[in-house]
């Protein structure tokens, strides 16, 4: 049970970049991916900004090396590109022994095609190729097939904490000795379905999201995919591949308060962070950066902020939400933000919480607002909270 879990590969595709190097460039330039929708058609495109991946499905198919006849959803395409980057980044195509698993997270699944062809599904046979790609498992199986992963696959969905829980499950499968390496993360495409859903909940901001700002007024939805390669100590032994981080703590807790709202004091957030911290063996002062869930909703940012204050007391580490860069990537947010947190550690910088101007009166701290180079970042905490109060916190430390 003492097996350590290392991060050996990263892959990310979002509105701020098609891969890890482009993502890093955007972060260093404080360049946000939030703008107007170009590919998805909805009347709400004119009402709200979004963080859409800048490529059309055909362009994504080309990038993924697939032919357009295969019935791929946008979800699968985003996932294929990001998971493949992580897989190659870790050099897994060359490592043959041991067992490899794939744990992927999504909530919208193949809804992009389903919502487009639903009337056809009900009335004719013209779009039958898209019927079986509607569910959450489809993208997982397509990605696993392209990576040649057979030993274990599954799909997880806990709304906006899905990808963090995929990382958590992958790590546990390594620690319990079932797998030697796991590609874990999430993929989520923008769909009219969930844009309408968030709009009905009245939690979309008309301007790019402003987490932890007193004027904040909701979420900016984004899309993309991000995967991490997790490996056991045995799996990396004797190799010369770089280690990007060690996953030393994780905590999953349920808020058990309301289906879509956080409790006023952030009980679930506090419990998840506390569990992760206890497992890591670190003192609160050992956490050098918190990548907050920080959605920009009135409710989340108070609850999360108060939970951070409760856990860290008078010594609150630098905190920022990177959702003003990537938008809220929902089921892919957990792994995307884990990667951004790991980049902070690797490159010793702190990422700014863009769009911030006015501190929240309810909180004693304000987020980081400038890119801080040459910072001490030995351990990072990445928070992901979902509808239903599914709260998860991950801690990565510099590998030793």
């Amino acid at each position, binding site marked *: 049970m003492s097996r350590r879990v290392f991060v050996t590969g990263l892959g990310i595709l979002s509105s701020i970049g098609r891969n890890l190097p482009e993502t890093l460039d955007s972060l260093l330039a404080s360049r946000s991916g939030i703008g107007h929708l170009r590919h998805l058609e909805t009347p709400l495109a004119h009402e709200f900004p979004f963080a859409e991946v800048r490529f059309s499905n055909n362009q994504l198919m080309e990038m993924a090396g697939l032919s357009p006849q295969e019935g791929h959803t946008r979800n699968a395409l985003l996932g294929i590109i990001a998971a493949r980057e992580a897989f190659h980044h870790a050099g897994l195509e060359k490592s043959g022994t041991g067992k490899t698993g794939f744990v992927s997270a999504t909530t919208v699944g193949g809804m992009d095609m389903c919502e487009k062809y639903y009337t056809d599904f009900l009335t004719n*046979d013209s779009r039958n190729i898209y019927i079986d790609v509607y569910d959450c498992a489809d993208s997982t199986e397509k990605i696993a097939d392209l990576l040649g992963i057979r030993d*274990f696959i599954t799909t997880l969905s806990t709304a906006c904490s899905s990808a963090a829980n995929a990382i958590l499950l992958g790590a546990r499968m390594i620690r319990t000795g079932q797998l030697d390496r796991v590609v874990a993360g999430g993929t989520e495409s923008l769909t009219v379905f969930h844009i309408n859903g968030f709009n009905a909940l009245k939690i979309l901001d008309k301007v790019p999201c402003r987490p932890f700002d007193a004027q904040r007024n909701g979420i900016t939805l984004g899309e993309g995919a991000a995967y991490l390669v997790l490996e056991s100590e045995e799996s990396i032994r004797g190799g010369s591949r770089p280690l990007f981080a060690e996953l030393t703590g994780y905590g999953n807790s349920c808020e*058990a308060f*309301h289906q879509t709202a956080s409790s006023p004091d952030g009980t679930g957030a506090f419990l998840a962070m506390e569990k992760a911290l206890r497992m890591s063996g670190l003192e609160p002062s050992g956490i050098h950066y918190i990548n907050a869930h920080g959605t920009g909703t009135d409710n989340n940012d108070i609850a999360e902020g108060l939970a951070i204050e409760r856990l860290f007391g008078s010594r609150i580490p630098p905190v920022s939400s990177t959702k003003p860069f990537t938008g809220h990537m929902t089921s892919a947010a957990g792994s995307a933000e884990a990667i951004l947190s790991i980049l902070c550690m690797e490159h010793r910088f702190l990422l700014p919480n863009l769009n911030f101007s006015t501190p929240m009166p309810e909180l004693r701290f304000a987020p980081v607002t400038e890119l801080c180079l040459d910072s001490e970042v030995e351990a990072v905490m990445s928070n992901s909270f979902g509808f239903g109060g*599914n709260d998860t916190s991950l801690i990565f430390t510099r590998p030793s």
Partner: protein
Amino acid sequence: MFHSPAYINGTGLISPQETADPSRFLPQIREYTDDFLSCIDPDYKEYIPPLAARRISRLIKMGITSAFMALRDAGYHSSLSTELAEPKQPDAIITGTGLGSVEDTERILNGMSAGETLMNPTPFIQSTYNTISSQVAIQLRCHQYNSTYVHRIFSFETALLDALMQFKEGMAASALVGGIDEITVNHLAITRRAGHWKTGPVHNLSVLQSGTPGALAGEGAAYFLLENRVSPSTYARLLSIDTFYKPGTARQVQNHIREFLLASGFNESRPDAVILGLNGDSLWDPFYSQIAHNVFPGIPWLCYKHLCGEYYTSTGFALWLTANILKRQEVPPALLLNDIKPGRLETVLIYNQDRNINHSLILTGTA
């Protein structure tokens, strides 16, 4: 393959059969001639106040109710009551669902087809797959580990695997684990186009002899209260679990099952019975027969999908059957597939597969 025994100490099952009363074991087999099999509604009032029940959709209602049936059966908290300040709680709540609330998803899609953009948020919230697990947690005010798996016929199995891992890791001593899916008229019509189902109504008790392609669709909600120790309500033990993906030929499937049995402690011996996932699809039932002839000769073969229909989390129904079979040492005749009479049953294996893509094994034994 993961081997880490746990005790099944409470069960709750809502299905097309009479399964809601834990004191009885399939008192009378229900026959249907229909396009799909629907669950028999239990008396929801016993578990959910009528006012609250009106606000939640069918799948969520089935999920909460079957979860509370399992908790009640195991001697935990029994219904949604605000009077109980400190209900006894499981250390983890984990759900598998292949499709989540189909009814809510369709409600939104139908609205969108009609050109509506502003929606009532309730169907959207309920369409989110983790709603069942989190609703159960909300009703129990349970802050413990909570997760949801959504991978076709692996959904319930990954939930069970997660629970067994929690026990082994020392993170939990109890876990409420469920498998739940529903079928609707629309969903049946759509997926019929993809060729998954029989093209018209069939008699459920003769579906395994139909000789035609396609399965009979069904649904169900099963929850189990697992604990790391025996209790007065113990049914059986859950011993090992495995899911495997695209194994290749039937021979490779057989090898995989043999390796699983070997790793679970069967050297030359076999389990005392096997429950197979035959569903009446003439394209795939011969695959089961081939595996059964080669790996399980001489033991009773049992079947269950003619009772509950085919759905992604149907092994929840099968696990409920094995729990009862092992506890009562009684096999309802409707389950018997071959001519071998069950004797004393110490171990029962469940083997399910979907088009030779996804395969799962669940091994259970007497307490």
